[in-house]
């Protein structure tokens, strides 16, 4: 009998999904209740996972499902940001009339898929999780079905994502064919650098994964989907799938193929350099905030991948710290976006921020902190994210990557500065409403204080992350 206790969170989540689904079907007008129950169940899930944190390096189901410090930490990040996404967007979905009972349930299923992805130690399990989260996301992207852009984005995401899943699956089959197994540990034993089939398999899988985290050149979907989806879903898109995909990146590259890093290192370096530069340059001309943040997240994923390219534990830890700080910055940014509301309408163009600092000094101050932090200016949290990653990269003497990365932060600083300029230097416009609900205010306050005060005690995060040793 397997020890099912260690996957208690996943079991709990599945049961919650089924229960909420039935509950929603049989009880009318229960969407609000289900929404709150979902938030509650996520909090319970978070507590369950915290409880699990003392376990170390366990596996289950024939070693195809791992619960180690990497998995638990990434799951905590996923669920934690899931909670905050739920907290911030409750009012938004109400106003935009998308508070159907399916909405929170789809979010939960997507999170379940991510948890499976994060823990997977087997190609098939990994693919299952990936598809579960993607299917839910297709629906979520087009959830505002009366809106043309939203429908378009859902369809676009579906078609492109299906293509990338196809490639990924093909890669899986190649690897299975050449290494006689789908289990990561067995693949490690059976593979060697000389087998081209495996190299091709790695490339195909990397393409699929790069698509999920929108790394250049597989980023085409991101701007349209970010812009088209309802903002609440964009928040979700910008944060959660990236955490899951990055942890799969780590496990996939460093468990079965850690010996073959000469084969994949160049690919990662290319992906990261291309993303950093493209993300920085393409964002300059944007007018829509959501589109801009899409390009900015492309760039940020480039930095996160930079850490992986280093090929050391230090690099992995850098990437994990990066994604942790990135998600806080993004949650904070989207909380600010949810505050740009006037007469039950949300504004998302950069021009709408014009002169914001006159009427909303605190909101502008938070945006100032968040944007400087996204640009990576010390002493804000965003700087430390880059610092950790480049520590690892320079340790490996990859100076070219470091120089390109840091130079592209200068380019990226330009468009963040442009927003700050519009907020602080331009003429003011009409006031926005200020009666925001508690969850939104709370999220913004917590995340801004985290970003601002991070430098006082930076050891906190590093100490947790330094326990994650994959190699």
């Amino acid at each position, binding site marked *: 009998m397997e020890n099912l206790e260690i996957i208690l969170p996943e079991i709990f989540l599945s049961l919650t999904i089924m229960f909420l689904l039935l509950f929603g079907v049989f009880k009318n007008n229960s969407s609000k209740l289900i929404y709150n129950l979902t938030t509650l169940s996520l909090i319970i899930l978070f507590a369950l996972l915290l409880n699990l944190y003392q376990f170390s390096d366990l596996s289950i189901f024939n070693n195809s499902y791992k619960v180690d410090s990497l998995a638990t930490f990434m799951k905590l990040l996923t669920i934690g940001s899931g909670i905050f996404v739920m907290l911030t967007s409750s009012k938004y979905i109400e106003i935009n009339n998308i508070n159907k009972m399916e909405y929170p349930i789809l979010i939960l299923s997507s999170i379940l898929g991510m948890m499976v992805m994060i823990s997977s130690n087997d190609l098939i399990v990994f693919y299952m999780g990936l598809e579960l989260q993607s299917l839910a996301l297709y629906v979520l992207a087009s959830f505002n079905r009366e809106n043309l852009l939203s429908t378009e984005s859902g369809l676009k995401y579906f078609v492109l994502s299906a293509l990338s899943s196809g490639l990924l699956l093909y890669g899986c089959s190649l690897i299975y064919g050449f290494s006689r197994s789908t289990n990561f540990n067995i693949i490690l034993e059976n593979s060697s650098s000389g087998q081209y089939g495996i190299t091709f398999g790695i490339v195909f899988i990397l393409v699929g994964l790069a698509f999920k985290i929108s790394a250049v050149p597989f980023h085409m979907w991101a701007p349209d989907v970010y812009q088209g989806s309802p903002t609440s879903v964009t928040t979700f898109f910008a944060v959660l799938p990236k955490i899951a995909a990055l942890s799969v990146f780590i496990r996939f590259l460093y468990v079965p193929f850690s010996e073959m890093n000469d084969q994949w290192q160049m690919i990662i370096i290319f992906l990261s350099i291309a993303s950093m530069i493209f993300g920085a340059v393409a964002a300059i001309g944007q007018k829509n905030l959501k589109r801009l943040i899409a390009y900015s997240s492309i760039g940020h994923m480039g930095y996160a991948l930079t850490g992986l390219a280093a090929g050391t534990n230090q690099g992995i830890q850098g990437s994990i710290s990066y994604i942790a700080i990135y998600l806080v910055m993004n949650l904070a940014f989207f909380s600010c976006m949810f505050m740009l509301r006037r007469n039950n309408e949300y504004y998302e163009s950069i021009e709408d921020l014009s002169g914001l600092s006159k009427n909303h000094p605190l909101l502008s101050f938070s945006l100032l902190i968040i944007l*400087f932090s996204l640009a990576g*200016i*010390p*002493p804000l949290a965003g*700087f430390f994210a880059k*610092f950790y990653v*480049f*520590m690892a990269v*320079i*340790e490996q003497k990859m*100076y070219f990557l*470091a*120089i390109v990365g*840091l*130079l592209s*932060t*200068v380019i990226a*600083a*330009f468009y963040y*500065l442009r927003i*700050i*300029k519009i907020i*602080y*230097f331009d003429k003011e416009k009409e006031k926005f409403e200020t009666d925001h609900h508690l969850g939104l205010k709370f999220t913004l306050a917590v995340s801004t204080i985290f970003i601002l005060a991070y*430098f006082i005690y*930076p*050891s906190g995060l*590093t*100490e947790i992350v*330094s326990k994650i040793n994959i190699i």
Partner: protein
Amino acid sequence: MDFPIISSLIILPTIGALFILFTKSSNSKYQSSKYVALFISLANFILSIYLWLIFDKSSINFQFVENREWLSGFINYKVGVDGISILFILLTTFITPICIISVISTIEHRLKDFLIAILIMETLMIGVFCSLDLVIFYLFFEGGLIPMFLIIGIWGGERRVYSAFKFFLYTLLGSVLMLIAIISIYWISGTTDVEKLYEIGIREQYQKLLWLAFFSSFAVKTPMWPVHTWLPDAHVEAPTVGSVLLAAILLKMAGYGFIRFSVGLFPIASEYFVPLVFALSLIAIIYTSLVALMQEDMKKLIAYSSVAHMGFVTLGIFTMTQQGIEGSIFQMISHGLVSAALFLSVGVVYDRNHTRLIKKYGGLVTVMPKYGVVFMIFALGSLGLPGTSGFIGEFLILMGAFKKSFLVATIASLGVILGAAYILWMYKRVVFGEIIHEQIKSMKDLKKYELLILILLAIPIIFFGFYPEPLINSIEISVTSLIDNYNTNLTQSIAKK
């Protein structure tokens, strides 16, 4: 554990800023904010004077060192002062209250935010001058961009957005290379603690590249020719106080960085790059003086004169002689006071006449006699007349330069003449002559607070001009040990070959 005096110096302005941020002044004039800002900055000044008094001038070690675990396992929060940094701290804490007095009496538009920005700025500046760890230094050094960007952008002139962006991106671009160098030093030497690095040194084969990376950052910030173009723009568009902060303190961070890091950490590379620095400094001195001569905008003229004066500073540092380095430090302090005063003087007439063009003035002395006198003191201080602090600095630098190379010193001396030319010519056109423009006649002489801050600045300029001993005394030992360390490193390196 003693009382953490340096950390208090760093933190105090931030506490003031937070206090201002969260208190709501009852009326729109922000009375309480004004007093808090003034009080905090004066308290900080007194604290730094106290620090200077109890500072042991005969010790070569860093004093009042605080060393705390910060980023566990990697980097410690380490601050402390030696004879060099303490002077810059004094300069910062002295200039800040002056800025605050000037701001609260001239600015009305979003005064509260301005005060917060200045106080945050003070924290960061003091942090730069006393950090003894490269990463901590970088945090403070770069953090200064944020408040300065806002000061230029919010309270600046017409082309403020362009200038603010130029300032920010230029300096950021220079600094990211320094970040790479700092991280590399960590992996090469295993620490970023400056004191430890002084002891163990950095391996010779890495020094040149690292030096260049640091240089790229400091050269932009100094600013050295040819990367000085952001400075005139930033100065012209910044509000008066922004210019004062920029000229008096921000530029000094780079000069300080050259002494502490470039010369201190990479002696072999510094020796190798001396010709480069000399060439750039001489171009800066001659070329920007000539450019300054032709300026029509007073602020731009002073901005170019800053570039020329900072050219003297870099020249002095890289003579690697006792006189040269002492002169550079002296020149930086003196320039901090003089340029601050000059920008404030320009601010005085700008507030009345709303133009900075030289040709719109003339004959000010008849309507503003007091102004004519104080402006004269600062103009003479700027050109380095004996009896003002400007003279001591330039004299020592030229002495150092003569030791090193006759040609370099001769060319640099030409710069002194040009310096006298542009500043006196400007003074003549603005203050003397007939009154041509009608609106000049209605201009009032200095108000009380203006007279107060200008006299406050004039006192040290004249005092240190006649009696430089207190300043020289405090830097002497530190400079000697710096040069000793430099020479030992050089001889060791030659002996190896």
